[in-house]
């Protein structure tokens, strides 16, 4: 019986000792990350069945349990991965946001300074200092664009670097989890007790992994974890970890993408599979904000250079040189390296070399020609060659059956074109100048079948599909040239089924925009004047005035000078064989071959005429014998007609198919970045609150409270002391028995 007393006392002491140990362990690990508090589970020993009933045999500790809820830990992990993703995203986009923060350092003031320079030349076209200040402000505008692009490119490089580092860390964690799996399985199978601290370590690794990329876990029957990323791609299975890879993308070698090491080599993971954590944040930031930002700044640069150059080409410089003359600078901005790029996918089996090029910007004032071939009327937009055909001038439609847009302001119903002739129509509603259709998106061209090419605009997944044969790539190219602002051309080789190309219309523009070297060196080359002028004869007595004239792309100013003479009813002297279009006050236009042009049509006065890309306004009527001369604008140093049009580009809607000005597009870009930054911050805060709650809930269950542990220390101490006292009592009882004997 006394042995029972000792036994029970010892079992109590042992249990209390374990309790004390566990409490000490908790106190020691109070601030160990990922530590879940532990407690002992005590149970009674098997009682001794006697005639007097069941006699208790003391206690034993069945197990040391960690206070852990898989559900709460899962919630923490899910919130944590979102918070990490948003934090990373925010940290990155905040850099762009900060760069755009100062209203004095963005693109906007440089743009304004540049156009201020343009206006100064407009006010004083013959002043060399004004011209030099314009080219100087152009150079600083270019430098500002380079600065922004540089910063964004550096960030792109930075993202590449961070992806590589993060992937390295993920691989290391995966390996550690695999190792822990092995140790846990061994430990648990040996003792049949949970390996609490090892499991804690592994859970902590999963939490750390979730900070890098969102993973999901599944527990095997032997206690090991399987870890998956994306939609079930295996990262860790039992004791084996797969490696993630960070390699240059096949579609775009400048981009580091994430892949999984498989038996067949590294396999790129689609970006939508990489979610959560730092990696998710980086990948999402790159595709959602950084790429569009780079493209957008490029789009502004490309549109500006294209439209500015197109207008410059229509002018005449201070030395009287115009398009076609030796030494004339048709380009204000040097566009040599600004063009779109078409990157061949590394996995292509064909050797096709694809080239992309900008479409020359369409004039806003929509110059159109309307020709009549044996009763079939064809309306052609001069800028891009888009055509509408029909049996009457007013009935022309394009391939989709759509009439020319009303916004173009063409008076087709009033056009008279005899068979074999071509009339030039200009829009009445839109001012001069040019615009582009470029978008800020990348494009992908895939030959997805023997009979098909598909071009995808990646920003909104809009697709163009066209049956594939050699002749159809040009077809596709002409289709997109009217809406997307670039063309495609197979320079050499063949494109096999499955081959793809990444097309970046505007990315290179911001990096490579430059002021034309000859213009920068000699400001006289700024084409401020218009290349033509008109002059009434000194003896004219009629009231007709002829405007100084305007030119459209492809113009030809007559040389030697052309003299038009008035008869009582007509204007004669147009060059033979040239299509002359006369426009009357009521908007009617009449085409003729080499004139003469009637001064009155019905009751409507002649309001203007155009030929050879030149157009003139007419006011009042001449007297027979009056004459007018059209000639090159020799010596016109104070003419600011072209620089005036260049100046108008500042506020004209020159981008995105006449929807935004340069400044408007840039403001939109700033607002998009600002919105995205704010959105990321606000979502981040909300996620952080969720994480706080989840962590609070987990801590409430699993966290160590030192006051509680202090109480437990006292409790187990007293239990130990009580059990020890039992031994003392047992000993005294034994002594009592011994003393009876003596």
């Amino acid at each position, binding site marked *: 019986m006394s042995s029972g007393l000792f036994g029970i006392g010892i079992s109590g002491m042992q249990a209390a000792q374990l309790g004390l140990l566990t409490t000490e362990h908790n106190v020691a690990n109070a601030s160990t990350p990922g530590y879940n508090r532990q407690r002992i589970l005590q149970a009674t020993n098997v009682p001794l069945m006697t005639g007097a009933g069941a006699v208790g045999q003391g206690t034993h500790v069945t197990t040391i349990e960690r206070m852990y809820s898989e559900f709460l830990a899962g919630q923490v992990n899910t919130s944590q991965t979102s918070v990490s993703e948003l934090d990373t995203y925010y940290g990155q986009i905040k850099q762009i946001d900060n760069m755009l923060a100062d209203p004095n350092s963005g693109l906007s003031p440089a743009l304004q300074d540049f156009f201020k320079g343009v206006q100064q030349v407009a006010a004083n076209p013959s002043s060399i200092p004004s011209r030099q200040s314009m080219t100087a402000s152009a150079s600083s505008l270019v430098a500002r664009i380079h600065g922004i692009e540089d910063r964004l490119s550096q960030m792109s490089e930075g993202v590449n670097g961070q992806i590589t580092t993060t992937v390295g860390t993920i691989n290391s964690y995966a390996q550690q989890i695999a190792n822990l799996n092995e140790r846990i399985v061994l430990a648990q199978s040996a003792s049949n007790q949970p390996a609490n601290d090892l499991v804690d370590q592994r859970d902590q690794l999963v939490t750390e992994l979730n900070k890098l990329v969102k993973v999901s876990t599944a527990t095997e029957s032997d206690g090991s974890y399987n870890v998956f990323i994306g939609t079930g791609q295996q990262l860790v299975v039992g004791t084996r970890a797969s490696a993630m890879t960070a390699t240059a993308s096949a579609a775009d070698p400048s981009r580091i993408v994430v892949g999984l090491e498989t038996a067949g080599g590294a396999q790129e993971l689609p970006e939508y599979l990489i979610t959560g954590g730092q990696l998710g944040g980086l990948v999402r930031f790159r595709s959602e904000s950084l790429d569009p930002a780079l493209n957008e700044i490029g789009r502004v640069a490309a549109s500006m250079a294209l439209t500015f150059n197109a207008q410059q080409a229509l002018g005449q410089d201070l030395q009287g040189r115009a398009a076609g003359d030796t030494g004339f600078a048709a380009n204000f901005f040097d566009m040599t390296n600004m063009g779109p790029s078409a990157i061949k996918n590394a996995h292509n089996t064909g050797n096709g070399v694809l080239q992309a090029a900008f479409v020359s910007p369409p004039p806003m004032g929509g110059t159109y020609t309307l020709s009549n071939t044996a009763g079939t009327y064809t309306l052609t937009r001069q800028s891009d060659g888009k055509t509408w055909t029909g049996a009457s001038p007013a009935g022309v439609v394009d391939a989709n059956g759509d009439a020319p847009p009303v916004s173009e302001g063409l008076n087709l119903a009033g056009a008279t074109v005899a068979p074999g002739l071509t009339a030039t129509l200009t829009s009445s509603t839109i001012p001069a100048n040019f615009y582009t259709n470029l978008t800020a998106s990348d494009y992908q061209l895939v030959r997805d079948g023997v009979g098909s090419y598909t071009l995808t605009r990646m920003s909104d997944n809009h697709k163009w599909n066209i049956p594939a044969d050699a002749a159809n790539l040009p077809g596709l190219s002409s289709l997109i040239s009217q809406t997307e602002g670039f063309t495609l051309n197979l320079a050499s080789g063949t494109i096999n089924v499955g081959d793809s190309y990444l097309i970046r219309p505007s990315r290179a523009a911001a990096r490579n925009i430059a002021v034309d070297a000859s213009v920068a060196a000699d400001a006289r080359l700024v084409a401020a004047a218009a290349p033509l002028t008109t002059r009434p004869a000194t003896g004219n007595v009629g009231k007709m005035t002829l405007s*100084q004239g305007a030119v459209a792309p492809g113009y030809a100013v007559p040389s030697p000078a052309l003299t038009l003479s008035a008869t009582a009813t007509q204007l004669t002297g147009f060059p033979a064989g040239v299509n002359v279009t006369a426009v009357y006050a009521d908007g009617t236009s009449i085409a003729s071959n080499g004139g003469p042009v009637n001064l009155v049509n019905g009751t409507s006065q002649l309001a203007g005429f155009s030929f050879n890309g030149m157009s003139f306004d007419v006011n009042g009527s001449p007297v027979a014998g009056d004459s007018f001369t059209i000639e090159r604008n020799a010596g016109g140093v104070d003419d600011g007609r072209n620089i005036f049009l260049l100046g108008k580009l500042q506020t004209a809607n020159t981008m995105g198919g006449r929807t935004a000005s340069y400044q408007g597009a840039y403001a939109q870009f700033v607002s998009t970045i600002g919105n995205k930054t704010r959105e990321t911050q606000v979502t981040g805060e909300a996620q952080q609150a969720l994480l706080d709650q989840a962590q609070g809930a987990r*801590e409430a269950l699993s966290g160590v409270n*030192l006051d509680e542990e202090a109480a437990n*220390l006292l409790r187990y101490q007293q239990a130990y002391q009580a059990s020890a006292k039992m031994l003392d009592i047992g000993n005294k009882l034994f002594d009592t028995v011994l003393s009876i004997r003596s």
Partner: protein
Amino acid sequence: MRVSTSQIFDNGTLNIQRNQGSLFKLQNQLSTGRRILAPEDDPIGAAEALKVNQSMSVNSQFMDNQANAGSQLALVEDHLGGVSNLIMDVQERVVQAGNGSLTDQDRATLATEIRQRYEELLGHANSADGSGQYLFAGYRGSTQPFGVTGVPGNRTATYYGDEGVRQLQVENGRQMAVSQPGSDIFMRVRQGNGTFMTGAAAANTGSGVISTGSVVTGYDNNAYTLTFTSPTTYTLSVNGVPEAPPVTYNYSDGGTINIGNGTIVAPNTGTNQIAFSISGTPATGDTFTVNPSTNQDLFKTLDQLIKTLESPSTGPTPDATQAARRNQLTAISDGLDRALDNVLKVRTDIGARRLELDSLTNVGQDVDLQFKGDLSRLQDLDYAKAISDMSKQQMTLQASQLSFKQTSQLSLFNML
């Protein structure tokens, strides 16, 4: 609720950090005076501010251009004012020269003055602006627009400029002409009364003087010649063709002659009627003409005046000489009148434009103020609110620091 010890520490520091973050941002806003520190603070406002900024800069550019246009126009106006004064002075001399009591010597003195005036006119016509660009050369600002060849009395002025009109953008959608080509002002001056011009043949021997004439109901652009068959009768030919059958009309000294639709008509009858008068006593064989107005440059007119004044009296009779001189002076005076009309028309135009500029500048200043207000509303900090936020935030931070300090000191271990 069960609270773990690390939670107390973690949350305490987290809250202090958050409060510090808010305080830092407020401090930043207060020290820069900007409400929007980065576009994320107000993306729409930031974009709006960019647009307003551009509009403001464009507006200020327009105001610069307005000032520029104003000074250009003032310069042109000054010179044209000089030109109109000059023309009026010369007209006085023409009236003086018509006085029959002047001697050849007197006229020669007048001619000397007109020669000076000719040079002065040329000076105005070739005037340049502050940067050395010729005002009246059209687009050819660095080409001297007017050149003269020949000797006084037989000089030819040539215009080397072009017809370009320099324009400045002074407002959205308003381009203002700030120059006038010299050809418009000096070269293309309609002669006579602007529609037709009367004249007497140089070989006339009588003392008939023809008036400038006027349009009554219209002019048919025909050339008419009145040939005196006797001092009191004349016949008419139209475009060089004598009337058929010939009609002889009676001449009355100073009486109005009306021509309408190709013949002499009673006053105020029919369409295309013009009226003029001949006074004095024409000799048999004298002819007078009516022709559509042609253009002649102002320099030529002055030169003709010099020539007329310097021509000695060589007529068969003093009356005939005087009549010939008066006929020439009438034509010259008409030419000067038309030139003055021309200049005054341009000056009126310029005056109207300067007035417009004044009002545009007023509007521009108002708009500028408006933009500044908009920009301030978008970007500037509300200091009162920010300062009150700042003290609130300070209090919160202090409270969280103090409470953390006290909570973290509580531990059961302290009492064991």
